[in-house]
């Protein structure tokens, strides 16, 4: 049996691939790209929410938001750790983010304009991320699967706190309800596009499914998210901004309208409202922290 046969046999028998196992070069490269993109998304994702920590409307809201942003940092670390087992250092991954060679979820290139957006981000953005991450718990690469299990345990708090915020506003004064609806209008489409292109347009999906990296397709995951979110919106009186959205009795799923992929790709490729801010802020924080890393290294060497 060749190395490739043995590898595929493990995949077919649901035996996880571990760092020291033989793996095809394409498998390693796909994981390096996907896992680092996932890690970068967690870390860049701290910025739109971090934006509101100092202006949270109550002490309770502030400590919750702080804990959530801290969790996102933790999730980024889990993922960088897992990605490093593929033989590429964290410093290189971070360099690729800062030089824009690596991508992160394009949703974080949208601004968070007011407090209602904290609700929409937690409810919709984290909600979409959870659907994807629950599926990835079964991914074929051991360290990635283990990181996903940990992340999923923590992530449901994130979605619930978001839904709490937006439902309070949606059920509040007319002005608050208007803010909640406005946040929903801005975040709905980018959220459902987080699952990526339609299956037939997703160039890399074939290998990823064959190798057990992806378990469910982009379109299936998107449908799952939409199906469970519609009722949550209805419950608090918010309208999903899609005139084509309607229940399909035959398929037992919601049909929905066409997504604007031109906008999606233009944001991915750097023309979103906040792309430059996000990367520049990351570089700034990284550079301003350099002396701390140097001092810590000097201290550790002295005490060796």
């Amino acid at each position, binding site marked *: 049996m060749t190395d490739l046969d043995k590898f595929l046999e493990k995949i077919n028998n649901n035996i996880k691939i*571990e760092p*020291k*196992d*033989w793996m095809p070069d394409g498998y390693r490269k796909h994981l390096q790209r996907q896992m680092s993109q996932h890690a970068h998304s967690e870390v860049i994702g701290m910025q739109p929410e971090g934006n509101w920590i100092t202006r949270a409307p109550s002490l309770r809201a502030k400590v919750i938001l702080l*804990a959530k942003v*801290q*969790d996102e940092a*933790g999730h980024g*670390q*889990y993922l960088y*750790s*897992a990605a*490093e087992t593929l033989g590429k*250092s*964290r*410093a*290189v991954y*971070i*360099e690729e983010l800062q030089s824009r060679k690596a991508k992160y979820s394009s949703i974080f290139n949208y601004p968070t304009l007011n407090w209602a957006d904290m609700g929409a981000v937690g409810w919709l953005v984290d909600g979409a991320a959870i659907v994807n991450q629950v599926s990835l718990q079964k991914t074929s690469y051991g360290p990635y699967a*283990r*990181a996903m299990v*940990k992340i999923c345990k*923590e992530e449901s708090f994130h979605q619930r706190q978001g839904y709490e915020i937006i439902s309070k506003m949606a059920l509040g004064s007319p002005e608050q309800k208007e803010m909640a609806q406005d946040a929903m209008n801005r975040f709905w489409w980018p959220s459902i596009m987080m699952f990526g292109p339609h299956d037939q347009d997703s160039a890399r999906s074939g290998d990823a499914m064959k190798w057990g990296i992806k378990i469910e397709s982009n379109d299936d995951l998107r449908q799952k998210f939409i199906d469970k979110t519609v009722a949550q919106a209805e419950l608090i009186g918010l309208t999903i901004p899609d005139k084509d959205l309607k229940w399909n009795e035959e398929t037992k799923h919601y049909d929905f309208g066409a997504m604007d992929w031109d906008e999606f790709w233009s944001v991915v490729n750097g023309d979103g409202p906040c792309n430059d801010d996000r990367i520049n802020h990351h570089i700034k924080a*990284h550079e301003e922290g*350099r002396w701390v*890393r*140097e001092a*810590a*290294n000097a*201290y*550790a060497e002295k*005490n060796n």
Partner: protein
Amino acid sequence: MDNQGDIWEVFIQSKPGLAHKHVGNIHAMGKEMALQNARDMYTRRQEGTCIWVVKFADITSSIPEEDGSFFEPSNDKIYRQAVHYIMPEGSKNI
């Protein structure tokens, strides 16, 4: 290239009486920072009562490709398993 510190593997005992279990790793400069980072990273929700950190470079691992020959000595010794032994008909509590 930026120095992100050494990689430390993290083991957590979730409650007294249980073994320490590997949970992942962190980057840190020195033991003390490794413990603090492990605490912040892996015990934000009362996941543990004790943490071990071990520098990744200090761990020796067996090699998966050599699994066959490495674990071979135990493969043909089924007499190490309790089920190997035939008990007399009617024996109880053994």
